[in-house]
């Protein structure tokens, strides 16, 4: 018989209790993996949007961590375009609308200048793309079209009493875009009462690999207006309040789940020790050293937590896939669970096992053999 077999044997002695402990750990790890994966997916969706549009620098109003609250003068675009090294400047206005009848409460809407390169990565599935001379025309993402049950040629009240013609439905690998509306910038400015204003500018540069040139350009842009925030796309995305809140909420919720998982494991191991006081006394009496008893209890605890971790990781992958396909989510959420997140999940499982097993293991090792045998 191997030591590992003894450990597994002890874990399987109380199948119901072990199962419940494994499930508790699975919930802790699964919550952490799923929530962090969703937060990462949220962040990566933003990154994908900018990457697909070949955006290298994002310019917004200083102090505005959310695109929606950033307000800049549209004419800044021409001044930035004149700077050396700037390939293209695309102004954009962002807002959010809702379609309560379809239970959609967060639908992004972007006002962009049609026939600019930023539209190149939108793959038109049905209908056509926006044109410069379009008035009150929109293109919508395929996820949104499905949620609203709308298609090309139909009208959509973007806000109440403001119907727009759907001229095209586009596909996008970016889950954020698939649930959004695109319309001409001028139309959105009028709709939102923000004529001459934009939320920010998306810049592409001549030589994206030249970091020194980008740094210099950044300083030149900042010099145009003291109220500008100029960041690379990754810096911009990381600074967004939505992203920071999503990641913070993910880890906060995960921490609570981890504490609960640890307490569950601690309770299980203490109960296990209580039931086996005499057995542990016998092992000590026949010569088992305290460290060997500690090792046995910790290994049992780790076995439970690792099994829970595996179950939790697999469940998280499945649940996130299911959640991202729910109509109410409208394609806004896509979990990105990569190997790094899975490793973090398993590290959480190991921590839960060690934390939950340590005190019971030490308590077991300190049992007096004589009194333990007589208990």
């Amino acid at each position, binding site marked *: *018989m191997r030591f590992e077999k003894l450990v597994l044997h002890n874990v399987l002695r109380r199948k119901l209790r072990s199962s419940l402990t494994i499930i508790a750990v699975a919930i802790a790890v699964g919550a952490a993996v799923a929530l962090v994966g969703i937060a990462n997916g949220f962040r990566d969706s933003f990154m994908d949007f900018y990457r697909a549009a070949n955006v290298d620098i994002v310019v917004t109003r200083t102090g505005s961590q959310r695109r929606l609250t950033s307000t800049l003068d549209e004419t800044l675009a021409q001044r930035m375009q004149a700077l050396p090294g700037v390939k293209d400047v695309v102004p954009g206005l962002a807002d959010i609308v809702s379609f309560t009848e379809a239970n959609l409460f967060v639908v992004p809407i972007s006002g962009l200048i049609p026939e600019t390169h930023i539209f190149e990565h939108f793959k038109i599935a049905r209908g056509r793309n926006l044109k410069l001379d379009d008035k009150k025309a929109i293109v919508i993402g395929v996820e949104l079209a499905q949620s609203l049950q709308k298609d090309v040629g139909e009208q959509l009240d973007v806000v109440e009493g403001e119907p727009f013609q759907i001229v095209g439905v586009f596909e996008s690998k970016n889950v954020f875009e698939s649930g959004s509306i695109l319309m001409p910038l001028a139309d959105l400015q009028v709709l939102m009462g923000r004529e001459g204003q934009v939320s920010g500018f998306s810049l592409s540069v001549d030589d994206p690999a030249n970091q020194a040139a980008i740094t210099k350009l950044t300083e030149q842009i900042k010099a145009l207006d003291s109220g500008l925030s100029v960041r690379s796309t990754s810096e911009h995305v990381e600074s967004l309040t939505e992203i920071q809140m999503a990641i913070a909420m993910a880890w906060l919720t995960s921490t609570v789940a981890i504490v609960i998982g640890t307490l569950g494991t601690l309770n299980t191991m203490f109960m296990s020790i209580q039931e086996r006081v005499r057995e542990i006394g016998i092992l000590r*009496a*026949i010569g088992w050293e305290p460290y*060997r008893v500690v090792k046995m209890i910790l290994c049992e605890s780790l076995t439970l937590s690792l099994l829970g971790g595996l179950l939790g990781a697999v469940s998280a992958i499945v649940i996130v896939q299911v959640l991202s396909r729910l109509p109410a989510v409208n394609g806004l959420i896509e979990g990105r669970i990569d190997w790094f997140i899975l490793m973090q999940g398993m590290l959480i499982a190991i921590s839960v096992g060690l934390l939950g097993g340590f005190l019971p293991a030490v308590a077991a090792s300190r049992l007096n053999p*004589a009194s333990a*045998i007589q208990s």
Partner: protein
Amino acid sequence: MLQHDSHAVLSSPNGQADNRCIMRLVDVVRHFPNGEVTAVNQISLSIAEGEYIAIMGPSGCGKSTLLNLMGAIDQPTSGTILFREQPLSKLPSLDRFRSSAIGFVFQAFHLLPTLTAIENVQVAMFVKPWRVKERVERAKHLLDTVGMSHRLNALPNRLSIGERQRVAIARALANEPSILLADEPTGNLDSRNGAEVLKLFKQIHLRKMTLVVITHSDEVSKEADRIIYLKDGKIDREVIQRPQTA
């Protein structure tokens, strides 16, 4: 048979401990403060290597406590216990001492209920660096020695009381101990099983292992080299049935 006074110590004429002495107790006391009981009261005793000692006495006279002290399962309140003239209190690890020098056969057998017979023997051997195959082979050999080769994979609740006792003896012998301590090994057995166990102890004694057995049975005690009678935690008298020769 020779009778000795209380507190007789096996010693050479000049009062020094004999070189053949494997274990010596000097003024050992075990006091339990909870119930204010002194279970062992100033016991001094020497045990020669290869000696077979029976400890007898009325219930509650301190026999099991004495055995637990000798097996380092419990620690004395005062006094010294020496193993090969090394105080147990000075040993680096009492667990190592228990695993390597002592084999303990408990009155209630104390087999681990969820492990089979062969696994119960092996679990005692985890403390030594046996290879898995060697451990299994040795466990099989020991169980064969005690007549249990046909019940290797039986759980304790599937074994008769006599069979459980034999597995307990095999486990006690697992690490080739210097001293075998047995607490009423035939107490729960019928006469047939008791005789089987007695035969095993005789074989063990013939291999020159030191045996200390607590018993109420005259059948067991008559096989011993020396009988120590306890009363109220003290040695009342000793009877030497077979003197130890140098």
